[in-house]
């Protein structure tokens, strides 16, 4: 039997990608085809040059996307799907997870509990929306990550200032004002890792800051995974289309809420506290999709 060609598309080789390369190297029948997304150019009609980066990707049995840019990953996922090559994650999952507005709509449609959120397009309408949500609330860019450009609005004065800055200085995406009720949490949030619908691990992310992102200095800690946590993470993952995703949960006074779902999971700080081989599971998921072709 010939081996499986697993395409690994990266922008940079970070700790996660090195862990994935190591996990792939443990699979004897798997050949890794590593492609830097900077180098990809592909025709949208017809076939790519088989000797170029896009051609190498098209020749893969499955593609694991590990690029950094949301829109670039979405474009590559769409290319791969047009070629009939399975991709982790599918374009629909990336599209939904990468846009907080779409995520919230998908979670709500599936009946998954999530913090109250509203959308507005002008400062005046946003201020009216915040009055309904109540202060403090959080304004987030619909596309963005690592806790960047989040603002907690404690009162009307700060809301007016931040919203004016966003609408005047921000790009087109910042003119869609995504507003979310602020949820009090016990000094941490939870992150569940879901692969093909199964919750495989959950960590806590502890921080003194209200933004509990490990990219912003939060510390990962082990948690006792309850059935409720595992079930909610799985439901959230299915709501955004499945795949392999990381689900952020908030332990609100009223129960668990799904805050966000991430389609390119970062796990460098999560393998040690959980003891779960997350890169190995991701690679296994990709290879299972390749086997189904």
């Amino acid at each position, binding site marked *: 039997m010939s081996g499986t060609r697993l395409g690994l598309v990266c*922008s*940079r080789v970070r700790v996660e990608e*090195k862990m994935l390369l190591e996990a792939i190297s443990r699979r004897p029948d798997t050949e890794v085809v*590593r492609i830097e997304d900077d180098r990809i150019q592909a025709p949208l009609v017809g076939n790519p040059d088989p000797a170029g980066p896009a051609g190498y990707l098209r020749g893969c049995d499955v593609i694991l996307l590990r690029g950094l840019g*949301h829109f670039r990953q979405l474009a590559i996922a769409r290319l791969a799907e047009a070629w009939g090559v399975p991709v982790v994650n599918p374009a629909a999952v990336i599209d939904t997870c990468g846009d907080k507005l779409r995520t919230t709509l998908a979670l709500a449609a599936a009946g998954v509990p999530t913090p109250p959120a509203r959308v507005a397009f002008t400062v005046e309408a946003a201020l009216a929306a915040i009055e309904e949500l109540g202060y403090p609330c959080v304004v987030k860019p619909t596309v*963005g*990550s*690592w806790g960047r450009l989040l603002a907690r609005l404690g009162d009307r004065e700060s809301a007016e200032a931040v919203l004016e800055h966003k609408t005047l200085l921000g790009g087109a995406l910042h003119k869609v004002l995504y507003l979310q009720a602020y949820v009090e949490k016990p000094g941490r949030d939870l992150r569940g890792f879901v692969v093909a619908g199964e919750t495989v691990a959950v960590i806590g992310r502890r921080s003194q800051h209200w933004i509990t992102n490990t990219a912003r200095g939060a510390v990962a800690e082990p948690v006792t995974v309850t059935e409720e946590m595992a079930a909610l993470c799985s439901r959230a993952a299915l709501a955004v289309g499945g795949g392999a995703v990381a689900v952020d949960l908030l332990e609100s006074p009223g129960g668990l809420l799904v805050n966000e779902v991430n389609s390119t999971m970062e796990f460098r700080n999560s393998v040690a506290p959980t003891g779960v081989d997350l890169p190995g599971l991701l690679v296994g998921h990709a290879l299972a999709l390749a086997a189904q072709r």
Partner: protein
Amino acid sequence: MNSDPSDDTAACPECAGRLPVPAGTVSGEILACGACLAELEVVQLDPTRLALAPEVEEDWGE
């Protein structure tokens, strides 16, 4: 790959200092210069060549 990458060093394009390139380093990896703290991308191996890593873009993240 380098024949003995553990002994490899490379020049920082920011401060011109030399920094060690750990064994197992791969192309595309990010290293930090201990002297000037610049984030550097490995753009070539054997011999190792480093370039300033790009700034984080607006839609980057997980």
